[in-house]
């Protein structure tokens, strides 16, 4: 079946430093890849999505590029902000079927 593996556990960093969260996946089908962000006591919200190989996708200062050859969709930001502290999920979907999520990465940004 489908699976998603992402940077596990907690990532702590200082404000202004770059962020990179890894995501790799396994699937037998052509899919969409997503990054969702969930702030404390809020619903998960879509951050980025892509289905196009080797195309960079950007939103709110974050970017990711889907590489089908390596089955990866890593999330990056050049300069972390305090407001980026949240839980980040990488996920994949096949048409209308539900999302398959990674275990999530908690990011804590300190001054």
């Amino acid at each position: 079946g489908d699976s998603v593996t992402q940077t596990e556990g907690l990532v702590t960093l200082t404000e202004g430093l770059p962020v990179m969260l890894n995501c790799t996946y396994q699937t037998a089908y052509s899919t969409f890849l997503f990054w969702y962000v969930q702030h404390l006591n809020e619903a998960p919200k879509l951050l980025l999505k892509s289905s196009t190989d080797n195309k960079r996708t950007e939103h709110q200062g974050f970017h990711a590029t889907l590489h089908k050859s390596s089955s990866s969709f890593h999330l990056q930001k050049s300069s972390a902000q305090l407001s980026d502290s949240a839980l980040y999920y990488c996920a994949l979907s096949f048409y209308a079927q539900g999302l398959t999520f990674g275990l999530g990465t908690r990011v804590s940004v300190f001054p």
Partner: protein
Amino acid sequence: GGIITQTPKFLIGQEGQKLTLKCQQNFNHDTMYWYRQDSGKGLRLIYYSITENDLQKGDLSEGYDASREKKSSFSLTVTSAQKNEMAVFLCASSDRGEQYFGPGTRLTVL
């Protein structure tokens, strides 16, 4: 825009009890989903529904029933609550692959 509403926000039940969670969306989306969120385990799909009266099982469907009697609503029933069922249940609806999530129902079983 639209919104997804989940009720109740907090649900406390007894072990063995049958409990129902409700979800409403006004996006007019065809597909709706129920996920369970456990700390350190990510979100796992319980049920989804492509249209009214359609039900599809996800990876975590055992111990749950679902109902989609109209397009805007999707209910989830925990058939017999267990102590290890303490989790947040998230409802979502989707349009062209992008899923929109509700705020969740936090379940505690005593």
